[in-house]
């Protein structure tokens, strides 16, 4: 198969050579660390011929013989201009970009490919440098919180890191860390995300117009790339914050050949609280992350990356006791705990077959496990009795993916590949251990059927420049899914995006994507709790499916220093699932019996983004006008109802101003229409309540028919940088919710002292100042 592909591509190459075209190809790297840079813009000055580096910093251009001025540029780096003479052979040319000494000067944006020129719509890239300038919550820079500030992306409840893209639910976001799916991106019940910003290089969010290489989720793809590690020098960075500290070390193992990066983060609430916990008791919570990556450059053609992530949340409570001697004088303890975490690993091999054909082979592992349990132990006169119970759920993937990119000519950039993933789903397993009078019982009960699934997809995609004005990305994505309960689904998903360049400063874009999703997240709350269960499509539960159409315009303003984009979208979703009324994650039956499977969804809206990327003042203003509704046969009388996070208006303002090299100030302000909710509108009696007496029950409004008060909040962040002998240190002072707005977390009905029923609002976070110390060497 591989030989056939190579043969076909060779023929295509020969055909191109027959037209006397030659290939300019190579890598673009950071001059200091030799890390390869993603998305660098390379173009021939005075023409529309150009390309960008891929995820691994590789580029390829086809050029006819002649003389050219090549410009290589990327935001935050000094541009390179190079005279090129193409005669009668291919050229291999690598570039090393130097970081800009200062970003204070207003410069014309010739860096990265302008949004106006890109065919891809509904996509936003954020650099970690940009993210780190956004005011931090409790001193923790958070990637997902930054994502929530983009138009079309909504936060859930106050403070949480779940995100909702264009009316989709959190499980419809494919979060890829170095190409590996991360199933639960939350720490501390969602208040922090699992991504340690110090270990991250790049963040890229796609909300629609999905190219054919993406699949498996309906609403978005969030690609997060870990740093690779400095090939030349040993460096470190870290921070000390109010709730956590982190440290990142990177450097060469073999100079210019092999590098490593390792980054760890841990909270210390449990350690700080331990002196105040009474004797005989132990109570604690912490979360911790470890990111590690090694990469080795075998040659210009081959490079290997090994990356690993492990994150854990652990909550525990233990109480020891001793009986009064009158009652036997025995002693024992009760212990309970809740823990969850992700493990991911990726081994990636880049191979350059020739100047036009680049490949990446990735082997992946991903696991998410949630566990809740208790244990009771009692010993008296050497008689031991104990019992324990653990309930856990798990999803585990092993995968292999092969992606190839072929620069056919300057008009066609082909991508194709295939992927296979083996999923194991264990949505509900109870383990019981009991010891009494020396006899032990240990039993495991799979409350829900274990599902093994084979998930395969293949794709082909062409980025086609059609003349000076048109550019089209079109492709097909085929996926197939087979489970051990003999469910088999397969699906062909067409994708197309098109751009029409009206002039240098304005382009019009449109896209269509059909998406399929074979995994589902069963959630009681919709706020991303660890108790949410990942489950598979089965013979009874069909895959989710969506279709999305988007239209938009992008414009560069005022000498390309500003960008304005407007997009409208319409998305339909089918085969959504949701718990039946009152069902929950701990059920004594298979999960398939506890869900409604006939859900439909629709989402539509308008997104505006006004962004400034360069100069002393950078940032954006985003606005979203959106509607999103759901319908299930057995919920809300089968009528459409607003989705929990249906939010009509959503505004985010993100501004960073750099006063000098020493001081910068970040500001974010967000406004959102209140979340929809369901509340009691009446009370009534039914017989057969407790002990047969009539009970009083609430009659609720239609589902999510009411609106909480609006949400708005101002955050401020102030950074004071100072160069030291050993590197650089930064003091960060952040203020979350600067004007202490009492935003609604939830509302409930209560009775006041006068016996009147009233609505009470509970808010979570008032003004929260924090300070952190960051260092870099």
């Amino acid at each position: 198969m591989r030989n056939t592909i190579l043969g076909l591509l060779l023929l295509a190459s020969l055909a191109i050579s027959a037209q006397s075209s030659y290939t300019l190809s190579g890598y673009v790297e950071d001059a200091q660390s030799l890390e390869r840079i993603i998305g660098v813009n390379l173009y021939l000055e005075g023409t529309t011929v150009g390309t960008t580096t891929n995820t691994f910093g590789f580029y390829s251009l086809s050029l006819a013989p002649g003389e050219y001025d090549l410009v290589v540029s990327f935001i935050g780096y000094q541009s390179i201009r190079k005279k090129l003479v193409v005669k009668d052979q291919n050229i291999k040319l690598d570039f090393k970009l130097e970081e800009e000494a200062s970003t204070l000067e207003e410069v014309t944006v010739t860096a990265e490919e302008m949004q106006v020129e890109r065919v891809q719509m509904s996509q936003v890239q954020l650099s970690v440098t940009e993210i780190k300038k956004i005011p931090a919550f409790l001193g923790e820079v958070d990637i997902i919180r930054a994502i929530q500030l983009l138009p079309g992306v909504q936060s859930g409840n106050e403070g949480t890191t779940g995100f909702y893209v264009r009316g989709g639910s959190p499980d419809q976001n494919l979060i890829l860390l170095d190409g590996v799916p991360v199933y639960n991106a939350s720490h501390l019940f969602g208040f922090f995300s699992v991504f340690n910003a110090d270990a991250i290089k790049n963040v890229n969010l796609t909300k629609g117009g999905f190219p054919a290489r993406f699949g498996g989720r309906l609403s978005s793809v969030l690609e997060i790339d870990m740093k690779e590690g400095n090939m030349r020098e040993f460096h470190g960075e870290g921070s000390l914050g109010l709730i956590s500290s982190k440290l990142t070390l990177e450097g060469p193992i073999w100079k210019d050949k092999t590098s490593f990066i390792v980054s760890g983060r841990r909270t210390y609430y449990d350690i700080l609280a331990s002196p105040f916990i009474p004797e005989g008791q132990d109570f604690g919570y912490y979360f911790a992350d470890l990111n590690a990556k090694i990469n080795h450059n075998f040659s210009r053609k081959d490079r290997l990356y090994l990356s690993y992530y492990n994150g854990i949340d652990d909550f525990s409570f233990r109480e020891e006791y001793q009986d009064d001697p009158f009652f036997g004088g025995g002693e024992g303890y009760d212990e309970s705990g809740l823990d969850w975490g992700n493990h991911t690993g990726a081994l990636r091999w880049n191979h350059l077959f020739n100047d036009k054909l680049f490949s990446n082979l990735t082997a992946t592992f991903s696991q998410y496990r949630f566990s809740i349990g208790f244990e009771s132990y009692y010993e008296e006169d050497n008689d031991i009795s104990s019992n324990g119970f653990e309930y856990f759920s798990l999803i585990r993937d092993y995968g292999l993916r092969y992606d190839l990119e072929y620069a056919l000519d300057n008009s066609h950039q082909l991508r194709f590949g295939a992927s296979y993933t083996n999923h194991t789903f264990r949505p509900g397993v109870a383990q019981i251990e009991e010891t009494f009078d020396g006899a032990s019982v240990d039993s495991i009960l799979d409350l829900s059927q274990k599902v093994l699934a084979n998930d395969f997809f293949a794709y082909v995609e062409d980025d086609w420049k059609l003349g000076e004005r048109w550019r089209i990305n079109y492709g097909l994505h085929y996926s197939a899914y087979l489970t051990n309960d003999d469910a088999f689904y397969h699906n062909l998903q067409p994708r197309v995006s098109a751009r029409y360049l009206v002039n240098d400063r304005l382009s019009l874009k449109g896209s269509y994507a059909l998406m399929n999703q074979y995994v589902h997240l069963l959630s009681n709350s919709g706020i991303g709790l660890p108790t949410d269960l990942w489950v598979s499509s089965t013979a009874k539960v069909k895959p989710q499916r969506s279709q999305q159409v988007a239209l938009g315009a992008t414009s560069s303003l005022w000498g390309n220093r500003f960008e304005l984009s407007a997009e409208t979208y319409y998305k339909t979703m089918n085969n959504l699932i949701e718990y039946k009324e009152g069902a929950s994650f701990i059920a004594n039956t298979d999960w398939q019996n506890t869900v409604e499977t006939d859900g439909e969804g629709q989402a539509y809206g308008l997104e505006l983004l006004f962004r400034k990327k360069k100069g002393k003042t950078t940032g954006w203003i985003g606005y979203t006008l959106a509607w999103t509704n759901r319908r299930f046969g057995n919920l809300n009388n089968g009528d459409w109802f607003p989705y929990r996070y249906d939010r009509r208006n959503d505004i985010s303002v993100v501004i960073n101003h750099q006063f000098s090299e020493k001081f910068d100030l970040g500001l974010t302000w967000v406004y959102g229409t209140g979340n929809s909710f369901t509340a009691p509108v009446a009370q009534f009696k039914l017989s057969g309540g407790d002990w047969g007496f009539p009970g009083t029950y609430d009659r609720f409004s239609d589902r999510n028919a009411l609106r909480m008060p609006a949400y708005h909040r101002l955050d401020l962040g102030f950074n004071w940088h100072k160069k030291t002998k050993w590197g650089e240190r930064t003091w960060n002072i952040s203020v979350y919710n600067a004007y202490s707005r009492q935003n609604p977390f939830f509302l409930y009905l209560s009775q006041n002292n006068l016996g009147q029923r009233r609505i009470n609002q509970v808010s979570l976070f008032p003004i929260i100042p924090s300070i952190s110390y960051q260092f870099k060497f």
Partner: protein
Amino acid sequence: MKKLVYSLSLIALLACEKEIDFEIPDPGKKAVIETRLQYGETINLYLSESVYSLSAENPAYRDDFEAYLYTSEPGSPFPFEVIENPDFGPEYIYQLNHSLNQGQNYRIVVRADGIPRASAEERLLEVVEIEDFNYNREDKEFTFRFRDDAATEDYYMVTINELGSDNLIFSTLDLNMEFFGYSDFFEDGEFDGRQFGFEAYLPDESFNGKSREVKVRLEQPTEAVFIELRLHHISKSYYRHELTKSAYETSDGFFSEPVQIFSNVENGYGIMATSASDIEKVQY
């Protein structure tokens, strides 16, 4: 600095919870109908009024409703008579001695001063016969079969009763049977997946049109000489009402969606349910 810390702490404490002015739409007072029409039994109807959720009043049973049963028989509608309930439970019972026929539609209409007219309609289902019945007296275990009608969506309820009296607790290993009222998986010492309860419900979605075997075990000792196993063929409305009522009562999900108790009453709340039962009587 001290003042700043004090001010910030004060703001933090005040920020947590507050009473707010929030207008919840008032649906007005409505009639609440509650009845289960059972083949071969007298009709008992409970009627009460609802109140606005932010009102200081409480919902109450009333004795001044006009209530009628509409059928296709001559003489329809048939008025209910109200009596005081001699037992615990609702204060008043609206009663009607009327012979109910399987397969026939019935409609109840009620109205009272200050309450708009409300109604509910339901079909009385046919009895589904118990087949291959067996009772193992030593283990107190019942085994039987019944045949489901492929043409209709059916719901069943199984109970074990003292003769003509209260339901008794029984158990099953059958995971497709659902206990709404009392089902405590974790407290079962055997940890074998056995479920317990007073009423087990069984929708036909997994055996539509087929013969279905049921195996249940009596768990509650009784002084009764005879006990009955009852297979009730119940209306979908009844199933959904009981399911959602139980879910309402057991729902403790702080962030989860509240459960709306299913109602088939037009312009009111509550339930008009129907059932038809086949009964096997055995010596305990």
